[in-house]
């Protein structure tokens, strides 16, 4: 009860402080800016974005052809007679003489032809949809039926080729019982005028985004799975880019305020008063974070309502908010100056945005997309449910890493950490050092390593996203080496912090012991997290590389032990200079081990 009232008091102070400093001077300006923003957005919507204007030059000798491209601001059009065009052909990317298109043999020339082709197709559609006899202009319609495969996840995920190559020339015979499929009818149920209406609507959608690449947005059929051939290729979910802006940016903005509030306490020892309050640091931090947390949830809910989405979208966002706040806390606590604060937070937000954004591009296409909670939001917006397992899979890493960061923040929320300035790396080492107790060094070393596992997994997931679309052997090798590097780096943190702290005291016996503790902790943490969440990925070939060391117990233990021991020995022998070579050597050993096992895997 006392804790709760303390928490609410701190939260109230925070709100008061923010309103006090921001209220009088910022609010009027913010309102003016908001009005301006609405006005400018309207203006932009009307005049369009002029980013690509005039990047191609086209020469035309027949006015109707010029009309086809006249609405496309990417082209600067030169209407002239054949001779003039021929003489100045060097300056033009594309020349259209009569019905013949000629292009420069350059990247720009080829790109110009591509653009012209798309404009021409759009023009053809606008003509065809006005034909009396619509089915003479659109003689072919395709009804796409999706078949659910029970093998869905296994096939693409287990790293097989995109489609299994089938060598036999005889038709395949299904193994299971044949399901009767009714013969599809040959007539179209949608009236001709409705089809015409739908095709006309498509014309209007010459969206700005669509222009950036024909790969990004092919035309979506207004009739769902009923399409003309040109609508057949699958469009990328451009939603996720917009989602990033709509959902993640406000969250990022709000977490900046929290970051700044923590930083402000550190300026000129202003937070001293706060530290004298008879409350545990965790209560103080929670109290300070509470208003921001509520504001972020409220903003997300408002955006959700505005998008007409079900409020289920809040569930995947909460771990993201939690994670953002945890990072804001740590960044606000370690930054030495405002510029450092800015750069670290920009760096962090780029990393976090890529982690959230890149996988969600593949929503509906590949299981890998489930790494990002945004994918769940895409699903919710599409009106598809997601399972608890999927939710755990996408969000557990966010919850875990957020919790660990909050813990580190809480133990370090004291005078000697907050009001001192030191370089970034030593500062981080100090923070980790605080987490390693003097009285129980082995238990805390174990805990530190076990808790570093979610971070390692997060980094490795990112690598997986980065590499999985490269050609097969290359992606495997890159993943293997970088994953080993990340793991060895993480394992070295605890032992090196201990060794730096107690330089003289760390004999060989203690190095062996520390390596054993680290190895045991890693094994324990990996096992635990895998069983909870990652079974889906770990069944794939990519997973087997990341988590190869999980088969028999003593082998991975030996591997982890050797890696840590190499780093420890290297520091012991060479001092601090030995750290980097130690990690590289450990990575090499790790890779050799993995290669050996994969080779055996493939026979």
């Amino acid at each position, binding site marked *: 009860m006392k804790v709760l009232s303390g928490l609410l008091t701190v939260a109230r102070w925070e709100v008061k402080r923010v309103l006090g400093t921001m209220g009088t001077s910022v609010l009027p300006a913010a309102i003016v800016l908001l009005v301006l923003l609405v006005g400018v957005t309207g203006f932009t919507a009307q005049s369009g974005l002029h980013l690509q204007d005039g990047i191609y030059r086209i020469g035309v000798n027949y006015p109707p052809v010029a009309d086809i491209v006249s609405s496309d601001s990417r082209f600067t059009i030169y209407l002239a007679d054949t001779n003039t065009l021929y003489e100045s052909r060097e300056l033009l990317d594309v020349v259209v003489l009569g019905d013949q298109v000629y292009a420069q043999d350059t990247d720009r020339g080829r790109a110009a032809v591509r653009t012209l082709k798309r404009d021409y197709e759009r023009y053809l559609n606008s003509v065809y949809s006005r034909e009396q006899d619509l089915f003479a202009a659109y*003689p072919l319609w395709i009804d796409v039926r999706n078949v659910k495969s029970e093998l869905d996840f296994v096939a693409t995920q287990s790293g097989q080729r995109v489609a299994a190559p089938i060598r036999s020339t005889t038709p395949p015979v299904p193994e299971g019982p044949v399901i009767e499929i009714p013969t599809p009818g040959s007539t179209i149920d949608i009236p001709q005028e409705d089809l015409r209406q739908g095709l006309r609507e498509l014309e209007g959608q010459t969206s700005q985004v669509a222009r950036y690449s024909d790969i990004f947005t092919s035309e979506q059929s207004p009739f769902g799975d009923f399409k003309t051939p040109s609508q057949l290729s699958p469009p990328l979910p451009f939603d996720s880019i917009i989602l990033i802006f709509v959902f993640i940016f406000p969250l990022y903005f709000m977490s900046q305020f929290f970051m700044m509030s923590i930083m402000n306490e550190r300026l000129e020892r202003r937070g001293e008063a706060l530290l004298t309050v008879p409350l545990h640091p965790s209560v103080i931090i929670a109290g300070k974070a509470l208003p921001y947390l509520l504001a972020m949830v409220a903003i997300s809910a408002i955006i959700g309502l505005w998008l007409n989405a079900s409020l289920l979208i809040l569930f995947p966002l909460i771990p993201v908010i939690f994670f953002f706040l945890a990072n804001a806390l740590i960044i606000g606590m370690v930054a030495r100056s405002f510029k450092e604060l800015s750069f670290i937070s920009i760096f962090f937000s780029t990393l976090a945005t890529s982690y959230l954004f890149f996988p969600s591009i593949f929503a509906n296409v590949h299981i890998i997309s489930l790494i990002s909670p945004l994918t769940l939001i895409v699903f919710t917006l599409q009106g598809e449910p997601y399972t608890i397992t999927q939710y755990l899979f996408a969000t557990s890493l966010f919850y875990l890493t957020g919790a660990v960061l909050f813990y580190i923040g809480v133990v370090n929320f004291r005078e000697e950490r907050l009001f001192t300035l030191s370089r970034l790396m030593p500062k981080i080492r100090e923070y980790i050092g605080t987490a390693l107790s003097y009285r129980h060094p082995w238990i805390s070393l174990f805990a530190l390593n076990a808790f570093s596992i979610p971070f390692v997994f997060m980094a490795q997931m990112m690598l997986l996203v980065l590499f999985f679309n490269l050609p097969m052997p290359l992606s495997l090798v890159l993943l293997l080496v970088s994953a080993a590097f990340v793991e060895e780096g993480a394992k070295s943190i605890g032992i090196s912090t201990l060794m730096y702290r107690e330089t003289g005291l760390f004999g060989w016996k203690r190095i062996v012991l520390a390596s054993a503790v680290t190895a045991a902790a890693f094994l324990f943490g990996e096992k635990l997290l895998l069983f909870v969440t990652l079974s889906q990925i770990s069944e794939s070939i990519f997973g087997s590389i990341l988590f190869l060391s999980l088969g028999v117990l003593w082998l991975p233990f030996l591997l982890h032990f050797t890696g840590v021991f190499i780093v420890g020995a290297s520091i012991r022998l060479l001092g601090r200079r030995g750290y980097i070579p130690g990690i590289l050597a450990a990575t090499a050993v790790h890779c050799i081990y993995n290669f050996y096992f994969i080779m055996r895997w493939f026979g």
Partner: protein
Amino acid sequence: MKAKNIRIVMRKDLKGLLNERTILLAIILQIFVAMFSSFLVVGLTSMYDPSSLSRFSGVRYAVGYSGSDSALEDYLSENREFRVHRMDLSPAVTALSERKLSAVIYVPDTPPDADEPIKITLYTIQNDISSTVVNVKLKELLLRYEDDLRSVREPRLDIIPVALEFPEQTGGSDFYEFIYALLIPLLLFMPAIISSALVIDIVTEEYQHSTLETILSTPVTLGEVIWGKVLACEILVPVQAGAWIVLLSLNGVIILNIPAIILQVMMFSMILILLGALTALYYRERTAAQFIFSTAIVILMLLALSIPDNPLNLVARLATGTAGPEQWLILALVSLVVVFLALLTQWAAEWAAKKTLAG
């Protein structure tokens, strides 16, 4: 206003940046973003552009064909990427669900010159990369078939469109516009935004750490302090923009007119940096200044983008080599704004100095 004092302030702030290794962080960030976007482009191209899927060459996708004969069936069996199996519909779809086929096509017996359209039913596997790839490949053949049918039915068309004959396409990147008209302008203007946020940080820092009084007790004036900081941030712009250009060139993107681009970027950045300095002088506190400034930046960028011949568009055109002499006119206009803002900054610094001394 003494140039020497300005230089001292500038050097101090640059040194501070180097000391904190924040610049290093920014460069790592650039490399990271460049790496991610190039990987992304590689990944997406290979997924959506069949011709670049060379790594799958030699693979033949098994397709079940059911229903009546058609030109489509011939196209499929001529194509080296498909292996067509004539099957009954039900076993074919069952085999598809067991992943023994990549797609199943059913063609009805509607004749090519019928009044009715031909309605093909295409069965694919839901939510799967392989069906994405197969669909892209099938689309080519279906488009050809559509063309055939259209020419059969052509006499029935009442409006005849203008005809255009395109040359055989020889390669060429799908991402030309994406790279030159989106990525390059946005990446090159990122340093401008970073630098202007930075100027707010280093100005408000002097206020909030109460170091400004100390500085002003020396012969240095507030105007000189501000200009030193503004120039320190401005110097970073060509460095960062240059780093982007080098990274993009390493990725095989050829950028033309580099000096002119850097000049344009530097001039435009100066507007943002001066606006940042003005905001910082007014609010003297980071949270408020950054909040107001970042909102203002969004408005300014949107506004700039919605005006034809804006500096971002100009950079795109310079990079592709289609910019004409109008670039100098734009540069002159931007310079005019810079001069106006510079005078305003000078005036604001004098005003702020009075305010600081008064209390």
